């Protein structure tokens, strides 16, 4: 801990002391406002030679695997920000110099979200109040991300979402202080449905199993909307509890329906379990309506594919934000740096968290300050390339959602894969224009630049 931090704490302590004295004197303290903080906002200004970032990832709970990979990426991002390398070489337009941010070296603290919104907020509070982070990021669940976005808006500290795929994050729950680099369920539906129709035919009957929370609901709605546009029929949908591990009672209901496609709107452990059990129930060998029964996993990740195993994912279609086998300059340099550091390739969660950190740092350089409203303005409408995928990426000002190409991927069977991590093959790269939508369809308000 540096000296200036102790000084800083005592400065705040003194102010609290003032408040307490006032109370003791009988003045109602409730009406006292933070009158000293005319230009201070959140943890701005940043004092001392270092700037602190917070990485709040799931270290325990259902998404611990992804959390570990996110943390690896964050550490790599800090390393590159401080001493150059990685995507700093390919990312443009970039104001990053590889000597920290605004002349300050980047330091970081780590928290555990426990894949639980309440724990995530408590952990984030600690990083904000005690460690004075100027920005924090992370998370592998939409409910956790949304809960933290609201906190960000309350306290005036920017939150750069990690992996969250729900429409709500940049839809009805969008916040001025929250930003998402990852794509969302709506874009998945838009990108995936045409490929599904092309591969499996336009006359298909789909049954959905959906994880019963924010992300699952939006994923189901999006898949339903876009597959029906392709001529598919939605036979049924069952909301499954997030904590379910045995899906047999839902799978038998699917088997007994006349559906010939099973869509699993599940992620993480849910998806690993439901997909494995669907295969155990013989679903991939069934003939329904004279057609081969198919399973679709709208949101894929390599880590989950690993969990389910190559034989279970063989030929199963889905979408992904990024894959380490991509051949553009940004992906190559990132994968190379990550492999050199950790000995295996990064996941899409790692890539998105890495990019978020660089994007925030760059926005500070562009704004010339850490003052949150200015940094937000620098991020809004920012267009860049060289961070993975071939085209340009836009951070849309209206909803803080990134727009970029989307990958439709297919699971590789045991005989097709080359090595442990080669589990997904890219079937199609759906261009950004195809998946872009009108921000008005989801409603929601970003809120003010300066929190009340």
């Amino acid at each position: 801990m540096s000296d200036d931090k102790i000084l800083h704490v005592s400065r705040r302590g003194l102010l609290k002391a003032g408040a307490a004295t006032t109370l003791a004197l009988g003045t109602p303290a409730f009406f006292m406002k933070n009158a000293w903080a005319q230009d201070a906002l959140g943890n701005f200004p940043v004092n001392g030679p270092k700037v602190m970032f917070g990485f709040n990832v799931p270290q325990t709970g259902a998404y611990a695997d992804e959390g570990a990979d996110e943390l690896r990426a964050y550490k790599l991002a800090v390393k590159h920000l401080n001493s150059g390398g990685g995507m700093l070489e390919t990312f443009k337009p970039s104001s990053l110099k590889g000597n920290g941010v605004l002349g300050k070296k980047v330091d970081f603290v780590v928290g555990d979200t426990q894949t639980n919104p309440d724990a995530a907020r408590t952990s984030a509070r600690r990083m904000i109040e005690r460690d004075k982070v100027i920005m924090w990021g992370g998370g592998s669940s939409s409910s956790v991300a949304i809960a933290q976005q609201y906190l960000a808006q309350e306290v005036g500290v920017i939150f750069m979402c990690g992996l969250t795929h729900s429409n709500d994050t940049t839809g009805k729950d969008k916040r001025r202080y929250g930003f998402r680099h990852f794509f969302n369920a709506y874009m998945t539906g838009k990108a995936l449905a045409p490929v599904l129709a092309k591969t499996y035919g336009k006359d298909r009957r789909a049954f959905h199993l959906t994880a019963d929370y924010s992300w699952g609901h939006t994923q189901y709605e999006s898949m339903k909307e876009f597959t029906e546009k392709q001529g598919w029929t939605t036979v049924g949908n069952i909301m499954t509890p997030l904590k379910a591990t045995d899906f047999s009672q839902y799978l038998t209901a699917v088997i007994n329906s006349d559906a010939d496609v099973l869509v699993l709107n599940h992620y993480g452990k849910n998806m690993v379990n439901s997909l494995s059990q669907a295969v155990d129930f013989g679903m991939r060998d069934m003939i329904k309506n004279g057609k081969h029964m198919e399973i679709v996993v709208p949101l894929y990740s390599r880590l989950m594919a690993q969990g389910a195993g190559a034989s279970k994912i063989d030929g199963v279609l889905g979408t992904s934000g990024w894959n380490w086998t991509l051949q553009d300059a940004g992906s190559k340099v990132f994968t190379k740096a990550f492999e050199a550091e950790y000995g295996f390739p990064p996941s899409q969660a790692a890539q998105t968290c890495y990019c978020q950190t660089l994007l925030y740092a760059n926005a500070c350089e562009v704004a010339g300050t850490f003052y949150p409203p200015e940094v937000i303005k620098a991020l809004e409408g920012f267009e860049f390339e060289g961070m993975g995928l071939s085209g340009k990426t836009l951070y849309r000002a209206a909803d803080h959602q990134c727009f970029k190409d989307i990958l439709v991927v297919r699971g590789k069977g045991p005989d097709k894969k080359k090595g442990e991590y080669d589990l997904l093959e890219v079937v199609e790269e759906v261009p950004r224009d195809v998946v872009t939508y009108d921000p008005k369809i989801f409603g929601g308000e970003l809120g003010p630049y300066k929190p009340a």
Partner: protein
Amino acid sequence: MMNKTYPSFWRANAPVAYFAVIVLTMPFWFPLIGGYPGLDTKILIWAIFAIGFDILLGYMGYLSFGHAAFFGISAYTTGLMLLHYSSEIVPAMLMSVVVTTVAALIIGMLTLRRSGIYFSILTLAFGEMFYSSAVSTLQSWTGGDNGLTGLPTPTLFGSVIKDTDVFYLTAFFAIVAYFTARRIASSPFGLMLRAIKSNQDRLEFTGINVQRYKISGFVVSAIFAAFAGSLMVIYEPYVATEFLHWSTSGKIVIMSVIGGVGTLFGPMIGAAFMLYFENVISVALHEQWLLVLGLIFMAIVIFLPGGFVDGARRVHRKIMGRSAPSGPPAEKGEA
């Protein structure tokens, strides 16, 4: 019985005064031991919850494994009031207390028909029922797994309260809660609760309507939880489904036992210890902090059933010799 030859009001309430001083100076000393603003508020909220729980467990002898139900019901009520009615906290808190009281009456009447182990499991079942309802069946109201988001910043008589204001508001309620709980403990009603704990059958033979006292004790305990749950949402305008989960019930049990059941002060110490442990010490222990906490908990149940307070008393007695009196007067009655 001491009856009317009481010591002065001030002497009888000295522990409350000490407590008030400790609490109100918290913003000064808490950061010195690694705490931070916000955590102090949370500690006091849990302390209020713990005092109420102690009335049920420490005085009446009923171990509830579903007390999160009251904390959570109150939190959701406050959240819904802030969201749909007004950002003013007074009506929100009042409504929360009313709703929680009604819920406690109903659950109390159903669960208090049984005692001991049955009661523990029944309360656990009710708690889980509320949790499952909030996450699934009632999710259009409760926001499901996301929790209740988008609440306005709470206000008191028109002015926004947050951070430090909420701390002093919570401190006020914590001091009142401690004072009230002490009064309850030393009242005839408190004696009756203790009689229920020590020998319920004998009490029934005397013709007293024990059931009525049990339900009253249960409801009083739930009202403390209601204040805690409501303050939790005022502190952070967000309602987590976790507030209803059995792990919250488990947490309050662990806190109370670690601190020392039946002493009122002990459970508050336990609350402070646990939150401090979870948020400050845990950083050093990494992912294993829960394991360490579990071991501490087991060790206390096995070797020191009176918790920290009992431990402190034993140490005190060792130092002062065997003849020293044990603790302040109001904290007798629990060995």
